[in-house]
């Protein structure tokens, strides 16, 4: 058996898939050949090193902010899902909200027109629509929320709106700042979550 033969069989040897006699032949060669032994040891070290590599590596930036806007709402009817993805509908929705005098809608519309990152603009438009729908639902919901609770919600919505406005101003001055974009979307999402939570909490049944 030559060194080349051994090297050819090395994978099967290491993976333990060789027949006993083949294995013995290789063992016998290894006994005598320092070069092949060295090659085998190097391979063993390599594989041990590979197996010890971390199974998990965290990305160097938060990918969730790019994922979140791509998650289609599941509870909504399918038609809405298709609709809400169409840029024309997004633009129309933003314009409609603008007509309604909604500040959020105005912002979304501006982002749609400003030619910035389309994913970011689309996410904002979607949030604007959701936010407005929920706010209207909450205003007309005959729920258990006491006046004091409603005023707390209004106050917290005010805090979120002020934060959104400040982040927008900062982003206008530094349009390529991804951290600012993420922060802004986070606030928008918090706004929606607060409204959803208020609706859920106010319902007497589950």
């Amino acid at each position, binding site marked *: 058996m030559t060194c080349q033969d051994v090297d050819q069989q*090395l*994978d099967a040897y290491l993976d333990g898939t060789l027949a006993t006699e083949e294995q013995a032949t290789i063992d016998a060669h290894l006994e005598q050949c320092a070069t092949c032994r060295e*090659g085998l040891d*190097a*391979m063993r070290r*390599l*594989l041990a*090193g*590979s*197996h010890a*590599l*971390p*199974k*998990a*590596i*965290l*990305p*160097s*930036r938060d*990918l*969730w902010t*790019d*994922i*979140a806007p*791509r*998650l*289609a*709402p*599941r*509870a909504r009817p399918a038609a809405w899902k298709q609709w809400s993805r169409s840029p024309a509908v997004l633009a129309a929705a933003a314009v409609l909200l603008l007509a309604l005098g909604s500040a959020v809608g105005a912002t979304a519309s501006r982002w749609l027109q400003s030619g910035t990152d389309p994913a970011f603009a689309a996410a904002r438009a979607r949030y604007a629509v959701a936010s407005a729908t929920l706010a209207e639902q909450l205003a007309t919901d005959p729920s258990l929320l006491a006046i004091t609770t409603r005023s707390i919600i209004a106050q917290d919505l005010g805090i979120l709106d002020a934060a959104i406005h400040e982040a927008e101003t900062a982003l206008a001055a530094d349009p390529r700042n991804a951290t600012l974009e993420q922060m802004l979307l986070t606030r928008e999402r918090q706004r929606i*979550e607060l409204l959803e939570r208020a609706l859920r909490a106010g319902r007497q049944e589950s």
Partner: protein
Amino acid sequence: MNLTLARAQQGDTDAFRLLYGEHVGRVYALCLRMAGNVGEAEEFTQDVFVRAWEQLGSFRGESAFSTWLHRLAVNEVLQARRSTTRREARVLPTDTETMAQHAAPTAPPPMPELEHAIQSLPDGAREVFVLYEIEGYQHQEIAAMTGIAEGTSKAQLHRARRLLRARVTR
């Protein structure tokens, strides 16, 4: 099935975000090693989670969620890498543009020599090496997932091991 998973299946994105937090490291590691560069790895990772969200309803809990997600990730990455339109549409880093160079502006953690060497393997050899040695799949499974013959998988592993040995012992 746990509460977070059940909630995510009902459409709770917050719950899904928790699942993301729990599993992103594993998925990203796979994507990074399979892709060989940060840009694609980030893109694939996002695609995997979006696909998982879309298919979450079909997860019945026969296997662990992590296993299901991992398999989905492998398929997603392989499919994306095979899709020529996608490859053409994207500005691909060249072989010489390693992960470290690509990620330089965001200061990645120091990467071991071995990881570098794996990144620099040719695509086919790298994929098989990562799936076999790091992710623990067998040749038969790799053949089924990648659509190559079992013999090809073995040959690619052979090639990868030798290239790596030469690179890390040099």
